[in-house]
């Protein structure tokens, strides 16, 4: 049997984290190929419903990346993301889904190395956690 490889979805904001991911690419930093990136204009655009939908469609972990607090190009977009994620994680916990399947990270445009590091660490965590139990719930 093949070793379990997690599927990971990342939402990256256009201004910081996507540029950070780009920098990781052009700097040739290695990170696992388990990740699929969706570019959004702001991490504040990411609705918690997106993340739950991703889980129920069979993704094993979701990463949300935005600008550091204070650096948001829409001033307060990431403040809202931070608050939403806190609530979302709690709801998931009560529903019986491990809240660590969701992760919020701040990655700036200059932090290419950090982006690679975040993705590597998260992929490793998801590999340990095993397949997302919601996959089988959806018949």
């Amino acid at each position: 049997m093949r070793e379990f490889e997690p599927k990971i979805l990342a939402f990256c904001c256009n201004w910081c984290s996507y540029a950070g991911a780009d920098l990781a690419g052009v700097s040739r930093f290695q990170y696992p190929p388990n990740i699929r990136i969706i570019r959004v204009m702001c991490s504040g655009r990411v609705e918690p419903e997106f993340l739950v939908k991703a889980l129920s469609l069979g993704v094993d972990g979701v990463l949300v990346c935005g600008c550091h607090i204070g650096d948001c190009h829409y001033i307060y977009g990431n403040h809202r993301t931070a608050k939403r994620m806190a609530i979302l994680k709690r709801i998931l916990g009560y529903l019986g889904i491990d809240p660590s399947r969701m992760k919020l990270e701040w990655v700036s445009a200059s932090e290419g190395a950090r982006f690679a590091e975040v993705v590597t660490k998260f992929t490793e965590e998801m590999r340990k956690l095993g397949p997302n139990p919601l996959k089988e719930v959806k018949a």
Partner: protein
Amino acid sequence: MIKKARDLTKKWLEGKEVDAIFGLKQEDGYIAPHLFIDASELDNLMLSTQHRLCYTCRPSRENILSLMQRREPNMKIGVVVRGCDERALIELAKRGQVDLGKIKIMGIACNQEEAKECRCEKPYPSNLVLGERVEGVSEDENVDALLDKSLPERLAFWRHELSKCIKCYGCRNVCPMCFCKDCKMEQEVFTEKGWLPPEIPMFHFIRFYHISESCIGCGECEKACPVDIPLLTIFKLLRRDVKALFDYEAGLDVEQKSPLLTTLDEMPMREDVTSGV
């Protein structure tokens, strides 16, 4: 209690303190919200924990009180409320649905039995006019039972409970805080139409998340549910979490903006709070 409430509302109406009274009316054995304009009608005023006062009308999706206020913008309305109704009014006012300046609140306390029946944490309004204040029910066996379970057990539990859902939208329709004209629970992006049970846990998650910070803990969703899904369990836990994270409680203060609509500078979030998982 009901006699006192009738007398006092009559006094308010006859003394021209208010132009109308909004409360529950009993007629032919049925109870429904009613706008009392004539004092003689007030003999039919009723109090009931089983009937919602501030509900959202469907399909126009507008709160019954905001509809009335729009139609009669200058009318001063006296509203006969319980603790939960008052909290609903405050949350609705925060979101621009009702104008509290044109409302005079007659708060009525629930008695011990009523509080127990609703598993209500705060069975009295802040503008208490009639009745004795009793302490709320702080312990909830459903909540404790859920917290005792491990993550896989919780998932199995909700899988069972949520698979009973017949997608009647009763929980949403009865909720005083669910007044959005476009409801995400009806959007095909999130939950496919024509399938039963709805996607687990997506369909119910939408409400859990949207109401998390505005839930007033009235438990109407759970009472309305025809298949007895213990929805209040999650909302009670979320009310605790919102209190711990933001030191905020829905329905207390109309001036206090809700946490998810404010920045971290306006309403900071405590990072060190454990998630209870």
